[in-house]
């Protein structure tokens, strides 16, 4: 059993500050690297001044939307303006395929997340923090609960209560309003916006929702100071470092902290050791499975929001998954579509019906029963999903699928012309089982017996 590689690849250690391979699980260990010093300083400041520092750092959300963290906090009404409790919910529902960084924060530096929560609580004058952690994360829950309990016992929480709320297996609960529904004990189906959570979030009260990494970055922002933080990375819009999640067909997968602006190529080849066994890079799942795939001609793109955006990509949750030439891209698109079909909450018709339709179309392409015009139909279905639902889950199926059909048109066409998959069983994703099919199946053992 191997451990996940977690280290600073280059630039300053901010989220991973003080971590040198041994998890900082105890209060003493965290204090020894300067832990909770920023909380102490923040509490001595006016709450608005703390928000202002985060605004000036231009820290942006690490969960995928890249919304300015300080601005989001500034939308929360102050207690004198509203006669309701003010809540913080931390999104630890990390479920975007290819994303595994928040988990490592909770396993390696859990107190940093706690410190970030308490600074945020001071900034927006909240006494109630909920950390919504995906139900599958058991060791992570234990590490984080241990840190919260230790901080409480040491009197660090003060007036603030931190409750860790465990999810129960639903990708959609990473969407902020679905998360709120789930936290309220309901099915995790997104709400229509407005009202936005800052005004009416959990229990119809003002609620700040931030990703784990965003919150865990706040102590570093205050430690280095907003002006210095804003110079790191690719200013003015992509400041600071982030935890990149490198996986797939790469020699040294892992979580790497590095400044925004390093290139995809640098991360894959210099940090990650390149594609193993002499294989060649065919595509990159960039930002997460919800976004357009990257082709090799764009590998020199800097990993910052503007550079990626100019080429039609998204930084998402910092995912870089390498796909080598042995992979059939139709199979990839199919497996991605199956995921979103499985996770669609069913509330909006374009997503509920569209994801199913995409799976049917892509399966037909893969099996060789599709016609040329089905490729246009696939793009048309994507077009009829994007932007037409309450949340972006449907878009998250349509964007990668459309990018595969568009960028790998020849490969899709080859399936149609040959009446089957040119890769046969040689593709790495050949026959990959999807949970969405769990109800109608035979085991390989049963098949062999027939």
């Amino acid at each position: 059993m191997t451990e996940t590689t977690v280290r600073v690849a280059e630039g300053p250690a901010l989220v991973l500050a003080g971590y040198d391979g041994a998890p900082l699980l105890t209060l003493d260990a965290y204090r020894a690297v300067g832990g909770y010093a920023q909380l102490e300083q923040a509490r001595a400041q006016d709450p608005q001044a703390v928000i202002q520092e985060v605004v000036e750092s231009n820290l942006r959300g690490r969960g995928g939307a890249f919304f300015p963290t300080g601005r989001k906090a500034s939308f929360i009404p102050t207690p004198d303006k509203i006669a309701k409790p003010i809540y913080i919910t931390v999104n630890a529902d990390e479920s975007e395929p290819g994303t595994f960084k928040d988990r490592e924060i909770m396993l390696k530096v859990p107190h940093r997340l706690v410190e970030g929560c308490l600074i945020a609580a001071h900034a927006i004058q909240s006494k109630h923090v909920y950390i919504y952690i995906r139900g599958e994360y058991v060791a992570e829950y234990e590490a984080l609960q241990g840190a919260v309990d230790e901080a409480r016992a040491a009197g660090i929480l003060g007036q603030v209560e931190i409750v860790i709320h465990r999810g129960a297996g639903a990708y959609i609960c990473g969407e902020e309003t679905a998360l709120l529904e789930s936290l309220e004990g309901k099915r995790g189906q997104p709400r229509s916006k407005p009202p936005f959570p800052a005004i009416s979030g959990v229990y119809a009260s003002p609620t700040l929702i931030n990703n784990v990494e965003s919150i865990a970055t706040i102590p570093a922002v205050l430690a280095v100071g907003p002006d210095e933080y804003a110079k790191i990375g690719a200013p003015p819009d992509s400041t600071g470092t982030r935890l990149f999640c490198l996986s797939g067909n790469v020699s040294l997968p892992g979580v790497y902290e590095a400044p925004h602006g390093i290139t995809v190529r640098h991360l894959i080849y210099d940090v990650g050791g390149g594609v193993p066994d002499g294989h060649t890079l065919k595509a990159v799942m960039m930002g997460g499975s919800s976004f357009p795939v990257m082709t090799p001609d764009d590998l020199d793109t800097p990993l910052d929001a503007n550079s990626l955006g100019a080429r039609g990509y998204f930084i998402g949750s910092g995912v870089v998954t390498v796909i080598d030439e042995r992979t059939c891209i139709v199979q990839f698109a199919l497996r991605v579509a199956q995921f979103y079909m499985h996770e669609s909450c069913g509330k909006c018709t374009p997503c509920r019906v569209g994801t199913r339709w995409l799976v049917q179309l892509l399966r037909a392409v893969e099996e060789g029963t599709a016609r040329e015009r089905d490729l246009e139909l696939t793009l048309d279905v994507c077009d009829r999903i994007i932007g037409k639902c309450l949340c972006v889950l449907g878009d998250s199926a349509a964007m990668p699928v459309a990018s595969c059909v568009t960028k790998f048109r020849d490969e899709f066409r080859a399936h149609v012309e040959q009446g089957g998959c040119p890769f046969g069983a040689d593709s790495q994703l050949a026959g990959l089982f999807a949970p969405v099919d769990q109800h109608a199946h035979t085991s390989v053992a049963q098949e062999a017996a027939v």
Partner: protein
Amino acid sequence: MSTFYDEVQEIRGRYPEGTLSAVLPALRLAQERHGWLSRQAIEETAEALEVTPAYCYSVASFYDMFHLEAVGRHTIEVCTNVCCGLVNAQGVLEAFERALEIAPGETTPDGEITLRAVECLGGCATPTIVAVDHRYRQSVTPGDVPAILEELRSD
């Protein structure tokens, strides 16, 4: 040992009065006690939460981790999303299928082991991720399958 009812009241105390936030944790607790969410487990949960069993069913059925049918004493969950798929998740899943002679979603006839394929578990740097009784095993290969099963069967 405290009763299930008392534990649910303790959970309810973590959340504002009059809210249903305790539903997920209470269902999780019920499942831990019963192994799955049987009719009895759902009814006990509903009673402790002062909601209808139908409400508990409607919530439980939305979430992948809640079992509305009996499962084995042990569960094996293999991630078959893309990142694990690129590094032979299918081979790992098939090795479990062959050894257990069941398909994903099924339980061995002796009621010991349930095999499931699941979506991304968030361990993409060490594929294939297999959650054995909800604890992650990292970098699992088909060759690791016999030892995992031996461990479970001797438990």
